[in-house]
């Protein structure tokens, strides 16, 4: 298994509220939509990758340490990096460079979060507004997200 080391995994500052909401809800509780930040981050990174875009982080904030990614998540993040490299280099170059894997994942997750918010709520700002007014029903959102992922992934075409 690729070792992702102890790198910081960061997100744009403006998305911190959303990540925290998806983990803890608003007002905070033990469980919200995702059991761990890693689950949210990997989903967003895949969404970004599938959409073929990545964006630089704005006012980066640390979300978690890379050692918290499970084997499964590490394999997915590595696959994202292989794709980002255009499948052109020797895979070991990618597998070896954990920092690059994380940086690419951060950028894809950043774009992925934008796609997610746009498609489900209109925009990231609109989602944050809903969170602030405590008008998101967590169980509904959980089911809606699963539905969204199932429908999006079943018709998915990777964009370069």
């Amino acid at each position, binding site marked *: 298994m690729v070792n992702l080391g102890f790198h910081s995994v960061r997100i744009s500052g403006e998305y911190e509220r959303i990540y925290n909401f998806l983990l803890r809800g608003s007002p905070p509780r033990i469980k919200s939509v995702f059991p761990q930040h890693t689950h949210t981050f990997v989903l967003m990174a895949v969404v970004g990758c599938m959409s073929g875009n990545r964006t630089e982080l704005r006012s980066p904030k640390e979300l978690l340490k890379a050692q918290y990614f499970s084997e499964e998540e590490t394999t997915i993040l590595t696959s994202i990096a292989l794709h980002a490299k255009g499948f052109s280099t*020797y*895979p*070991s170059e990618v597998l070896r460079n954990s920092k690059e894997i994380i940086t690419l994942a951060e950028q894809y997750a950043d774009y992925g979060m934008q796609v997610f918010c746009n498609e489900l709520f209109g925009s990231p700002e609109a989602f944050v507004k809903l969170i602030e007014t405590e008008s998101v029903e967590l169980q509904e959102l959980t089911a809606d997200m*699963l539905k969204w*992922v199932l429908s999006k992934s079943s018709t*998915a075409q990777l964009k370069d």
Partner: protein
Amino acid sequence: MRIRRLVMENFRQFYGRQEIDFAGVRDGEPNVTVIFGENGRGKTTTFRALLFALYGRSILEDEEGNPKFGRKADLGLVNRIALEEDLASARQGVAARVEVEFLYEEKTYNIIRGIAGIIHDGQVVEEEVELKLIITLPDGNTRVIQDENEIKMEIDQVLDRRIAHYFLFDGERIRRLTEANETQRDEVRRGIRNILRIDTLNAAIQALSDVEKELHKELKKFSKGEALRIHNDLTDVRNRIEQVKSRLECEKKSLDELARMEAELEAAANAFDVVNEKLNEKKAAEAVREQHQEHLHEQLERLHNNSMRSLGLLMAEELLRQVQAYLANFSADDAYLPPVTRKRFAERLIKEGLCICGNRLEPGSDAVECLRSWSEEDSGSPSIIELNDFARDVAVLLGRSAELRKDAAAHLGTIARLREQIDSLNARLKELDEELDSLAPQPGAVQETLQRLRELSEQKMHLNTKIANYNKQLEDLVQEKNELDRQYDEELKRNKIGEEVRKQKELVVRAIRALEKARDTFQHEVAEQLAVEATRILKQLLDPEGQQVIDRIVVNHDWSLEVLDPHGLPILSGISAGQRQVVSLAFITAIARVASGERGANMPLFMDTPFGRLSGKHRDHLIRILPSLTPQWVLLATDTELTRVEAQILKETGRWGKLYVLQQPRRYVSQLVHREPALFTPTR
């Protein structure tokens, strides 16, 4: 225990002396006694009189708030008319009295309890003035006991007061069991606790928990730094647990209060047959909706626990497929140097100082620097073997994602179906509300009652959701507390602080867990026993059609009742309101039988209007079967419960021994008129 006679004198509605001789005193005799009369004439009072004679006034006050029994303030036991007559004449007070004669282990018991009442300054004052237990032995000798404690011990040996209530089945208890929510779970839990009589065990657990709290406080004195931080977090979580528990208790009480108010209002609305019919349908639809909502909640919870961890994987399927194809192509590309080979190759060239083309390698040149960087590559960098491992991981993930997709789609399908069903029930409930509204012209009071019932139903639904949320919160907090406990314990051990107190606390916690385990084991064993007994009874009570659909009753770990079909699938939400009522009846009968222990169901079963939601077919079937479930069966019935059809079926069983018709010549004056069952024809 067989009850031979109940004598009531100026007790509640019963003016003067009234007497019931019960059927089924000896084996083989007809064993059904019917007390027939309209609501409010004193059917339930006969059961209250029995309880009062056996256990005293306090047992009636235990039932405070039960609409069947009236509220505490209303618990005047001396007949009102007798009191008013006394006020108008001698003013010496009125003696009210209840006497019960029963047989137990070949001895005859006569217990007599008397109350004196008088109206003083417009208020009724009552006092218990007489108490006597006479035990007649088989040889004819008698023993008279007048000491209250001794009588209590004697009677409790025959039938413990904590389970006495389970021998009266009324609409209220049936309703509580038919509702698939917290009310039902409470009823089941309470029944099991009462059967086990484990008050002392619970008191011991509570006392130990108090000690544990003190020790926890004590440990704070020794805690510093990280230990103190965890201690504070732990205290915070413990406080939050207490808060949630107290809120939960509060909400449960409110729910119970709402259910009682609802039962009272329904009783009022029942006077209107059409309304009644619609209300019954509404109630059944609400019960099913509550079940669906609970099921939906569970499904969503399962979704959270299972699928949300893997949304990334589901989304990454196409990406993984491409990576898989790429890795397959790549392995075939022999021209490419894997890093390990490259490292060895570069090391050799640098050592030899010659390039592969034969030219000398100049130190410091780009070529040498490039070779050096290859040679310095981390020896732990991925080899071709690790690449193969990676390709295998990708393949495994692809397989898992296919399974996940299938599971998630099935889950979503169930959720969508449940939502559709809830929507359709909501639509039907809305229609029913409109139909109930349109039953105009109604007197204002009826409209108000219906409106209030609607509000209560909404409030109940809201409370049930709140209770489910609090339960969830509690579960999460307990998990958090366990984790903090573990961390705190480790911290204390590591720093060797507060050793003695920590060990004491550890011992206390172990003792609490052991006691809780013992209690839970008892409870679950009884739950299992109850489920088996209830299933056995259910098999007898169900008509052939029902027997095909329903296989058995189970008590879930959260104390809810479930009914399984022959394939072991839960179907409580899918069976009819009538079948649910039969399930409730079977379960309550099972509680009574299990509560009686080895001696069998030896207290007469009193059933107060038990057939509320049953269709004629079900009702007829039950009337044929119920008498065989108990040595003495006392049916308290109105003219809508026991019509000519039911009376005819009961006659055909050959088990109908006694009939008393309740008459009320004037207010507060009920009389029991003995009639021959064979000659009796109900008015409807």
